[in-house]
């Protein structure tokens, strides 16, 4: 697999050397001119893990402030798609337009399937790692946000509990709260509520909705539970075998 990263842009580099040269005829300005206002734009993006194709000719656009649910069965390519959006993976072929091309200050945060919470730390201490003095004027503001979030998702009395002793649901709540405390512009979550019941998932979604409305936060939420996300407001992108087979609002499914 060959790829190159030039001036922050991911270039299409599949195929032969000559094709690669031809595909390098892109520039940041050209992509910006072509952009129709989308925050994320994927054009015929493919990604393979060796011989296994995880994404195949995926094209999609996500607007600023949009709520998008990526659904599909296990192995459909949801996590790979999210990694491409987070720039953790460079596609084997295709073009990718990322929010940072519009503004380098755009901050992406979120939660992953495998939590990176620190086991020896309490829930509070894990959340406190998100304290960024460049976005909070005072530590007090951060603490207020932390307490508000903890109260809403119902973990106030468990803040001193060590992560090692928490169940999966509580860990997911802490991970989501920590990501939100960083006040991201884009929230990308991979199965964030897989260990939570519907009510808790709804609460999490409500909080994300508030952040979306108040702060214009773009949300990309991957879940294999299509029935759950159908009850929420937002666009659903359904993946199957690495291909998008549906993109539209839940009410039209």
């Amino acid at each position: 697999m060959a790829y190159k990263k030039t001036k922050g842009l991911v270039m299409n580099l599949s195929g032969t050397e000559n094709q690669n040269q031809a595909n390098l005829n892109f520039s940041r300005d050209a992509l910006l001119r072509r952009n129709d206002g989308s925050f994320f734009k994927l054009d015929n993006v493919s990604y393979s893990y060796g011989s296994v194709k995880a994404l195949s000719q995926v094209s999609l656009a996500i607007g600023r402030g949009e709520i998008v649910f990526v659904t599909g069965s296990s192995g459909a390519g949801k996590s790979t798609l999210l990694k491409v959006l987070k720039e953790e993976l460079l596609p084997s072929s295709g073009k990718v337009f990322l929010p940072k091309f519009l503004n380098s200050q755009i901050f992406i945060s979120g939660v992953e399937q495998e939590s990176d919470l620190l086991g020896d730390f309490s829930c509070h201490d894990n959340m406190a790692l998100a304290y960024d003095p460049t976005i909070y004027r005072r530590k007090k503001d951060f603490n207020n946000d932390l307490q508000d979030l903890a109260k809403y998702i119902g973990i106030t009395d468990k803040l001193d509990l060590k992560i090692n002793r928490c169940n999966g649901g509580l860990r997911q709540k802490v991970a989501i709260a920590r990501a939100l405390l960083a006040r991201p512009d884009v929230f990308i979550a991979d199965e964030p509520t897989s260990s939570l019941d519907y009510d808790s998932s709804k609460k999490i979604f409500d909080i994300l909705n508030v952040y979306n409305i108040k702060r214009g936060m773009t949300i990309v939420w991957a879940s294999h539970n299509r029935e759950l996300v159908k009850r929420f407001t937002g666009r659903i992108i359904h993946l199957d075998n690495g291909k998008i087979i549906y993109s539209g609002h839940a009410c039209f499914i």
Partner: protein
Amino acid sequence: MLYLNGLFYLISKYPIRTFAYLLATVVMGFVFLAEGVLDKKISEQIAFKLDEESYFTALISTKENYNMLVRKMIYLPGVEKVKVIGPEELNSKVTKAISAMKINIPLTAGGLSSNFVGMKVFFKDGLRDETKELVRNYLAKLAGEANLFLGNNISNIELFNGYKGIYNKIKQLLPEGFKLAAVVFWLYCVSIMRSPFLAIFMVAQKYQRSKNLALKASALANAVILGLIFLGITMAQISINYINLAMLGGVIIAGTVYMSKKMSWV
């Protein structure tokens, strides 16, 4: 503030590792920067104990007043001291020598030990052979050659020089050994500190707008510790070896990068 928060977390969650790391950094800083003090301490602690020794022995007949001979010998300018070997000691030495040869010679009263006393005359350091010969001749003249058996001149100068060479080598190598030990100990502490350090700062970085958080935190911590050591040494008016300072800087930079970067062989 962000770095301080992270370091505070490390201290509170991993106090032993953090303390070991701080201690190792301070020790390494001191060993490298205050080398003069270390050299002095080493010299004091492992002072060279072996004396240069040069002497000859003599057996003098008990008919002579050997006490008078001892007094006269002591006043000679080239003589350091004179030791009398009494009949018992002499007897035991002779018995030992004979038994070593495995010859059965009975030593009875009236034998060697009762007719002679031993005398050990020590020369002063750096005496020339001619002067030593004069001392021997003087003793022969005092006691009379018929009443005297003179032993050869014995000197430990080669042994002395050998030990002194080893001592000087140890004195020279010990500070380097300390430096090496301090670096190894520090790197060990870096390796045990690296995992929690990276865990905290890599996770924190995912939720911060700042870049290279771990590197900055590690560099800041080391710079602060070494700055304080440098200040302390300067205030104590200890001269700093700038080559050592450069070496220390190199070690610290390498350790800082190792501590704060995820390594991959790919």
